């Protein structure tokens, strides 16, 4: 019947066939007319029609597919077909509906760079779902704005303060020693990751090792939450390996048997011990000494106030709240006397201890910095058996411990885990999600691998990290930025390799520089820590006499500073050697060394005082005596501290001497600079000069 109607005779057949052919031919133009992007372009012209700036907007709005083509980056980007207003400043703000809103201010011109360079997604797609979809396994799913800084990092491989999340993520990658197991292009393995365990058996007990391996955290706050171990992210550098009891038994046996060099207990001067052991305040004295020496600049202690436990102190060294329950007392004394003898790469300075100080401080640490219940739930197995030690060694290798820790008889395991250099460019189809119930996206995969690796791969050896969501997002951002070498050769000029300069001065200064580990906190010619001031120009800044006094008794110039220079107990001769080296070598070419303080007259100083107090009101940030602000350093002793050449150069352009310093660059006249310099040079604590200024101020103001 049906056949009869449609195909009854040749004419019918022809008619039907023609009809179908016509419909088929009409499909393409119709479909084209109803395309999503045409809909948006019609909406856009409706949207701008009644605006006051309609004429200008219409003049710039072209119809049809828009395309940004960046052949060097391999980008074909048609997003502006619908996102029509991205470069229209009058369409900024949340009042303008998407997709017509102007792009927020960024350093790159969105019209020149297109969208997918930063946002990822399918640049060549011309409908919304295909361009944006994040759930389907597109090669480049769109990146949520929260992680957008990953895109900055694919090209900008140096530090990028404009992208704080990326920067912090990169810091976390370094902090957690990811490089121990994983290869990351452009990042070198440091000399030491985790501590060298060659003699760990002389330092801690088998019971402590068990506790640490099981749960590498040493603090518990008032709520029973296990917290920090010297890392403000709430995560110790040592991750959790989730070992079972047999594994813990064997590994703790193996490690506690590592005692290549036994500890020889230090022999204190018997007279010191005899005197001090009778005194009741030894521990209090030790605590006072611990504070005076500013151990807290590098080491933190947990302090509980109003039921809340917080860490106070720096994080260069480990947190010490329970150190007395951790280490062998003989080891502690030997460590403080010479840290590098135990751990060659330690950044801990070698202090010059008197027997009294050493005795008091170690007594304090062993008595006060303890937790009697720390090892309460740890089984006591006694001495390790040979079988346990052998099994422990196998575990040590199998778990990849040698990726971060050196130990006698085990070769270092580099590249134990997969190479992460291209992780951020991985296609979702290449990822194994196992049985994990998470969205099939690269971001979800990375976050699961870090916070619950077994959920993705029950057989995996990746340890577990307990990061808060913010840190997890930051580290994910840094990982997403690892897309291998940037896409184009033309971009290479943008990329500055991470600096690895080394500075190893020779001679007597070099020895002291190593002993006191100056570089742990200070920068020298671009090498060193960032906690304390850069000393590359210290010779131009300070007078020799002030430097010597400062090193013998470091008093901070900034009253609000919590972390201060430790007291090294160095001799006057040593301070002199360091001061001489800094004065002669660490010079700035911008500072006129030949300026003589005598050129600055009391009259100039009086005029400078007027400028300081009235015109520029420097006291808003600087203290003289007890009055003033504490944003900048105290200037009470500026005349003894600073050289005239430095003050002049500093007033002319502070950032030229210390890049990034927050003292604003003013536009002082040469006269003003000279007068201010004269005033600052006259500021001397206890010296006669300050009185001279006051006396002559009436005459000098002219």
């Amino acid at each position: 019947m049906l056949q009869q109607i449609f195909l009854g005779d040749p004419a019918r057949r022809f008619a039907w066939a023609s009809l179908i052919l016509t419909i088929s031919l009409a499909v393409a133009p119709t479909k084209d007319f109803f395309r999503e992007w045409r809909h948006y372009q019609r909406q856009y012209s409706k949207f701008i029609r009644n605006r006051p700036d309609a004429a200008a907007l219409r003049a710039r709005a072209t119809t049809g597919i828009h395309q940004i083509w960046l052949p060097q980056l391999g980008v074909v980007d048609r997003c502006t077909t619908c996102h029509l207003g991205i470069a229209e400043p009058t369409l900024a703000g949340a009042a303008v509906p998407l997709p017509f809103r102007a792009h927020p201010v960024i350093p790159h011109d969105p019209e020149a760079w297109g969208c997918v360079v930063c946002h990822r997604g399918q640049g060549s797609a011309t409908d919304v779902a295909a361009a944006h979809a994040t759930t389907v396994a597109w090669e480049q799913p769109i990146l949520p704005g929260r992680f957008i800084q990953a895109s900055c990092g694919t090209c900008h491989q140096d530090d990028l303060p404009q992208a704080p999340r990326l920067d912090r993520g990169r810091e976390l990658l370094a902090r957690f020693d990811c490089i121990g197991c994983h290869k990351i292009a452009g990042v070198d393995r440091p000399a030491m990751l985790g501590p060298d365990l060659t003699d760990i058996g002389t330092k801690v007990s088998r019971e402590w090792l068990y506790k640490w391996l099981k749960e590498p955290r040493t603090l518990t706050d008032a709520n029973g939450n296990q917290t920090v171990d010297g890392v403000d992210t709430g995560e110790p550098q040592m991750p959790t390996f989730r070992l079972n009891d047999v594994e813990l038994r064997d590994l703790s046996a193996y490690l506690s048997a590592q005692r290549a060099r036994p500890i020889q207990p230090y022999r204190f001067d018997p007279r010191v011990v005899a005197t001090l052991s009778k005194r009741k305040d030894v521990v209090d004295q030790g605590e006072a000494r611990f504070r005076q020496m500013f151990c807290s600049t590098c080491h933190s202690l947990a302090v509980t106030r109003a039921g809340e436990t917080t860490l106070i102190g720096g994080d260069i060294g480990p947190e010490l709240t329970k150190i007395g329950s951790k280490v062998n007392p003989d080891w502690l004394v030997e460590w403080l006397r010479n840290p590098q003898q135990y751990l060659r790469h330690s950044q801990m300075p070698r202090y010059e201890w008197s027997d009294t100080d050493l005795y008091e401080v170690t007594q304090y640490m062993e008595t006060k910095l303890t937790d009697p219940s720390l090892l309460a739930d740890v089984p006591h197995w006694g001495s390790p058996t040979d079988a346990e030690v052998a099994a422990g060694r196998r575990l040590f290798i199998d778990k990849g411990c040698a990726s971060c820790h050196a130990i006698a008889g085990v070769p270092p395991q580099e590249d134990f885990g997969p190479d992460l250099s291209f992780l951020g460019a991985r296609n979702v189809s290449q990822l194994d999600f196992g049985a994990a119930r998470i969205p099939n996206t690269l971001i979800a995969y990375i976050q699961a691998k870090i916070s619950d690796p077994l959920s993705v791969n029950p057989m995996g050896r990746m340890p577990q990290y307990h990061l808060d969501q913010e840190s997890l997002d930051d580290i994910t951002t840094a990982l997403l930025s690892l897309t291998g070498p940037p896409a184009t050769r033309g971009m290479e000029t943008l990329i500055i390799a991470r600096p690895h300069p080394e500075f190893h001065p020779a001679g007597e200064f070099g020895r002291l520089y190593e002993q006191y580990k100056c570089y742990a906190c200070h920068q020298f010619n671009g090498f060193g820590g960032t906690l304390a001031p850069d000393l590359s120009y210290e010779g131009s800044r300070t007078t020799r006499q002030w430097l010597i006094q400062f090193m013998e008794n470091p008093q901070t110039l900034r009253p609000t500073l919590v972390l201060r220079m430790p007291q090294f107990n160095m001799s006057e001769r040593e301070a002199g050697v360091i001061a001489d080296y800094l004065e002669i070598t660490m010079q700035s070419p911008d500072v006129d060394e030949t300026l003589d303080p005598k050129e600055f007259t009391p009259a100039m100083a009086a005029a400078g005082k007027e400028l300081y107090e009235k015109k520029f009101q420097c006291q808003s940030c600087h203290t003289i005596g007890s009055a003033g602000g504490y944003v900048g350093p105290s200037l009470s002793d500026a005349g003894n501290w600073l050289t005239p050449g430095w003050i002049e150069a500093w007033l002319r352009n502070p950032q030229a001497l210390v890049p990034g310093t927050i003292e604003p660059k003013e536009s002082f006249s040469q006269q003003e600079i000279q007068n201010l310099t004269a005033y600052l040079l006259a500021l001397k604590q206890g010296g006669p000069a300050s009185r001279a200024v006051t006396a002559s101020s009436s005459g000098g103001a002219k």
Partner: protein
Amino acid sequence: MRARALLLFALLGSALLTCCGGKTAAPAKAGALENAYDYETDWNDGQRIIPLNYQQAQGKRIFYQQCVWCHADQTPAGPSNRSNVTPSPPLWNDGATLNPLSDDYLGKVIGQGGSAMGKSAMMPPYSNTLTQTEIRALIAYARAIAVPPYASPVGKR
């Protein structure tokens, strides 16, 4: 004969399919924070998180380097210098004070210093230290964190 009929129907069917098919649901709308470049916690209300765009985020970064010492009551170093300065500088989220001031005026006070604008000389000039872009970012940040909230002149109209 039957094969030809089938062919025709198949043609018709596929034409219909290409016309109407191939569309999937648009992705779910994400929260404001999900797409924020950075964020700041409301200074007065620790529960309120304010999303920041790139420019506001740069303002936040520069603020915490240069300005926080006198224009906030809590600083990264702990105590604030605000109490040492008279007259007391406005808090950077003080909408009641800053909202009525135009971007242009604030830019001049920051760039040329307080004394140039008839205000306290304790506010130094920053035009040699910060770029105009950075100063604009600082103002954008102030607008973002303002309490009461800032409504731009365009938005009011």
